[in-house]
């Protein structure tokens, strides 16, 4: 498969000997225009890859912060077409690698293949499909490969070794390692055992491993980055943009908060 922006970014990071920083936002919170600006500011802050959530009414893998962000986005009128348009707008100004974090129903509604194609045309690099485990993936894999999109796979603390083996075989881009059981959201400390889990993945795959779920401070970001190739920061970024005024100054403040976490990761 042709290399995506995500693949190329991780090659570049590996050559530089740097750790990666993956940021997450809910597309359309508080509106899709602001999302474009938020993403561009995060790129300036040094974020390497963006995960944009396609808002869904029933995001069962998400904690309160991301659920509420999705609700706000839907209330502000973030449709599927609007979210695709948002990617196109970002692409006019940026080559930042972007993946969609999505629940299946939002893609099935207009036909899975058509949704994937629309996203590819808008300039997306891959998908992380939250509720599509290995066992169900087969009918949906082709659309992703045909459009040269990464299919990011999750590995969690409850995933046994033989299952990790099967998952990494289907994976590309990077492996998203969930550092703890539970839903998304900031935690007081990084779960113990995250390092061991990353090691179990590394035994079976050469793909970069990103560690996520629960990271919200520069210290946590640094600690997590030491255990893996990249860190994923989600709800802390969602909160930062939500709690600051929805003005260019507010967004600059939020981006500055994220930059401190990025810098901590890049120091390693």
């Amino acid at each position, binding site marked *: 498969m042709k290399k995506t922006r995500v693949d190329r970014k991780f090659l570049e990071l590996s050559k530089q000997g740097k750790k990666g920083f993956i940021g997450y936002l809910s597309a359309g919170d508080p509106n899709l225009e602001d999302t474009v600006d938020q993403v561009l500011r995060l790129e300036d802050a040094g974020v390497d890859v963006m995960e944009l959530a396609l808002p869904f009414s029933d995001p069962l893998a998400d904690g309160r912060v991301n659920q509420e962000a999705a609700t706000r986005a839907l209330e502000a009128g973030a449709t599927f077409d609007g979210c695709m348009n948002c990617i196109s707008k970002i692409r006019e100004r940026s080559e930042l690698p972007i993946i969609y974090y999505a629940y*299946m129903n939002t893609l099935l509604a207009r036909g899975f293949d058509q949704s994937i194609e629309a996203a590819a045309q808008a300039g997306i690099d891959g998908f992380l499909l939250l509720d599509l*485990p290995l066992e169900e993936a087969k009918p949906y894999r082709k659309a992703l490969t045909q459009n040269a999109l990464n299919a990011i796979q999750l*590995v969690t603390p*409850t995933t046994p070794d033989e*299952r990790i083996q099967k998952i990494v075989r289907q994976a590309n881009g990077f492996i998203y390692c969930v550092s703890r059981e539970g839903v998304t959201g900031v935690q007081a400390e990084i779960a113990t055992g995250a390092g061991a889990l990353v090691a179990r993945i590394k035994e079976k795959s050469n793909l970069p491993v990103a560690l996520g779920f629960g990271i919200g401070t520069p210290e946590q970001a640094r600690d997590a980055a030491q255990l893996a190739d990249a860190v994923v920061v989600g709800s802390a970024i969602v909160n930062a943009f939500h709690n600051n005024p929805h003005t260019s100054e507010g967004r600059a403040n939020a981006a500055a908060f994220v930059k401190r976490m990025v810098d901590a990761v890049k120091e390693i």
Partner: protein
Amino acid sequence: MKPTQPDSHGHFGDYGGMFVPETLMEPLNELTRVYKEVRKDPEFKKELQYYLREYVGRPTPLYYAERMTKKLGTAKIYLKREDLCHTGAHKINNSMGQILLAKRMGKKRIIAETGAGQHGVATATVCAMFGLECVVYMGAVDMERQALNVFRMESLGATVVPVTVGQQTLKEAVNEAMRDWVTNIRSTHYILGSALGAHPYPMMVRDFQSVIGIEARKQILKAEGRLPTALIACVGGGSNSIGLFHPFIKDDGVRMIGVEAGGFGVEGGMHAARFAEDKIGILQGTKTYVLQDNDGQIALTHSISAGLDYAAVGPEHSLLRDLGRAEYSYVTDVEAVDGFDKLSQWEGILPALESSHAIAWMLKNADTFTKDDLIIINVSGRGDKDVMQLAEWKSKN
């Protein structure tokens, strides 16, 4: 027709499956393994039968509704009295089965979701009986309309957690229960209350509820010496209906009629009649008919009955519908209340608002049957929990 069975990953034809986050896959696989073992284990069967008999009060009667039959003047009507189960509804058939399973898996903590509160009460009951911790998630709106059941659950020692996001009904309660389960996966078993969600739940819940149909089939053969013409049951998630239907699937001449919640009428969109709109999707782990908008956002639903107020339907029903083996229809809130009143006055049985939908369908369609027809209606629960809400509804309507 052969009874419908899922494949090894829970697919009923194109429906069902395991569309869940990765964290849940191993626990679901473990649950499937353990369930498959106990399913064949005579000791487990014996234990379950013991508690169903001695504690739940099974078998429940199949009662000849003589006055209802005479009033309607067509088919001969029997009522399967699940309302006479301990705790007042069929829900305990499943809770009992699953708690025995949880004990085998060594789980110390039980969680459940509840809509009308009957599943929450049933689960709180079996937890009290076996001394396990019990947490029940319930939409704040449902807590208000089913306050009596909240009190019952708390009296039984359960913690009832109000869910205040979204529509604050059953769907949100399921989301929260799943989030809890993802977080506490090692200590906790999730007793899902309907034939919904990811595999193995639709199959497992159906199996535990099939006791309804197994008994009813024997009872009708004993009473009448022949199989019924039709089975009628309400369909929310669809556990009481699949429990009644499944043992009859092989009996090709037996019509199976599922009655959904028509709410204010399907035209205005304020309903929970999934089969009235032809949309398939994935919600809470399973692929099935789902009420949703064109962007795949789950629709708001409405029913006077909290137990039927849900945007998706159990996947096996979707298959039975596509195969034409079962028929699905709906009645409105107003019709359901009429069903409640008629059964109360004709037979001295106050049905749950959920079950009142099945009664109402019969009232509406009595003319389509003849005196030779034989009907079984599932009275899935009793209506005591609904009287406050009905009193209020009647003062406004």
